């Protein structure tokens, strides 16, 4: 079944998802949406690992995906905490408004 899907398709999908996520990070100003876009990028990378693992019949790709999931969970918890702090301090979720650390 899996062998029916060519690797190229899986990788192209992963690349598209990654690009979408990146555009989301760069274009959105709301910090929550930026976090979500980062999640999309992480999942795109996970998909690429899974596809590559299927292509060579190795389990490593899926192991890596588990790692990515774990890391994403940790990242989201920290990220959401920061978002809460940001809302508390600046009463806004606009990422561009929080640019006091200008060199």
């Amino acid at each position, binding site marked *: 079944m899996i062998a029916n899907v060519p690797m190229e398709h899986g990788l192209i999908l992963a690349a598209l998802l990654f690009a979408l996520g990146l555009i989301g990070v*760069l274009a959105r100003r709301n910090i929550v949406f*930026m976090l979500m876009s980062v999640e999309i990028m992480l999942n795109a990378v996970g998909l690429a690992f899974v596809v590559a693992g299927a292509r060579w019949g190795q389990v490593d790709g899926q192991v890596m995906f588990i790692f990515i999931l774990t890391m994403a969970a940790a990242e989201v918890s920290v990220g959401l905490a920061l978002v809460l702090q940001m809302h508390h301090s600046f009463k806004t979720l606009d990422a561009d408004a*929080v*640019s006091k*650390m200008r*060199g």
Partner: protein
Amino acid sequence: MNDFLFLIPALPFAGFLILALAGRRLPKTAVAFIGAGSVGLSAALTMLIGAGFIASPPQDHAFTQTLWTWMQFDGYAASVSFVLDPLSLIMTFVITGVGFLIHLYSTEFMLDEEGYSRFFAYMNLFVGSMLTLVLADNLLLLYLGWEGVGLCSYLLIGFWYTDPANGRAARKAFVVTRTGDTAMALGLFLLFTNFGTLNIQDLMLHAAKQWPVGSATAVLAAALLLGGAVGKSAQLPLQTWLPDAMAGPTPVSALIHAATMVTAGVYLIARTHVLFELAPVVQAAVAVIGAATLLIAGFSALAQRDIKRVLAYSTISQIGYMFLALGVGAWSAAMFHFMTHAFFKALLFLAAGVVILAQHHEHDMFKMGGLRHKLPVTFWTFFIGAASLSALPLVTAGFYSKDLILWHAWSSPSGSPGLWAAGLIGAFVTAIYTFRMVFVTFFGESKTEVNHRPGLRMLVPLVILAVLSIVGGFIELPRTLGNAPLFSEFLRPVFNEKAAEHSGIASEAVLQIGATIVALAGIFVAVLFYLLRPDYARKIGGVPLFESIRKFWLSGWDFDALYDRLLVRPFLWIADINKKDIIDSGYTGIANLNRSLNALLSKTQTGSIRWYAMGTAIGAVVFLGIIIFYP
């Protein structure tokens, strides 16, 4: 008794430490007791040790006490050890004795000054360093004392530091003497590389054995040491600092710039006299320097108006006599003149200090006058000092010491009629300027009210020094007048001078009579111009030629202007060109480059998280591209 030798310099050092650490909290009486007392104890100890030394001289007429090893290198261990021989005993006796009298005087003189304890701390440090200098048995320890007294001289000239002029005078003294000190340090290096030791006794033995008379190294070493001596003793060409050094308090001028420190150069040459005997050229130069200095300084003293500057030029001139004596090989005559000079010049300075204090700190003699009746003790002691300085015959110490030098300048193998004539003219000039000072200050009309009368602590040192200025000469009676050369006999073990040959008594008597006539003639000129007929002096002063000569002498033969043109201004010019420091600009360039790069990079820190994400993304693409397309 000799075991307590180390206490002689240690006591003033201890006084310095107590005053430096706790001086602020002590009352003035306690400061005076510690300051003068430490030197007084030292003087008493010197008397005791000296009496023991004279009664039963140790073997080889030298006693060495080693305290500890100071530093060790290259197989040579420099030790802190003191040596007591007739030469250092005489120096120690003068330093502690005259030093104590001046300290006693200062306890009253400085009473109303700020920094009473600071003054005595510096003075004690000076006495300690000076004693280290004369008692040191190696040149390294001597150099330590040498620099120590230089430091104290600097500190005390600038004692009233709130006036920038005093600070300038102090710096000038320090820099000018440092020029000589550098030469001396080079001399020490030369001696050490040649002999591997700095112990004076060993050095002299080695030098006498290894260096032939007139060899180039010996000449160089002696010339370098002479450089140090010339700087410290304010001789040509480094004499310019001493007149300005009068900016310090008067007791300082008496102790440091008349009696002790400025004669350190004389001591150094006397101590290393073997070296100078090996270098006849340098020794002849010493005589010529002395003769030239005594004339130049004597004529300069004629034109001064400031009483302390007269005495300063007179000091330069008298040290010139000592150099003249050293130059003709009359070592003990030089030391004899050192001792009598310490007595009468300290006396003159201290008496001048009383006058200055009584006249509202006025230094100009021509604004004084008529003080004879108001300050009788001061007048008589000053008069005795002046008589001794101008070598009034038979009764004064100065007569015996100066006469001895003149006799040696004539009769010694390295002496010459020219040197003798210079000394004789110098004696004439000395008599004129000395009695000019006496008459202008103490005779004539009173011009300023006396507002401070000296107390006992100022008068007692004056009287004691006045007595010494008279009887100090009787320990060396010439052959024509009793033939009792106790002083040179005492110093014979150090200098190995030949006993005076018995020929030429007649010529010595003739020379003495000549010198006497010259001194009396000088006094007569002073009496004529400054006592009987002041209008003569005014008439002569009115002639333009004499007026310009007077100005020339007043400025000390324009040496300051010469050095200003020759050294100071070129140096300032170079410093001005190199204001931005050529070598430094390379390093500044690197720093500036880094700073501008930093400014450039800090612009990228916009604080916008989306820009950072963009940067990361572009960076990732670029690196991936590199990896893929240029593997």
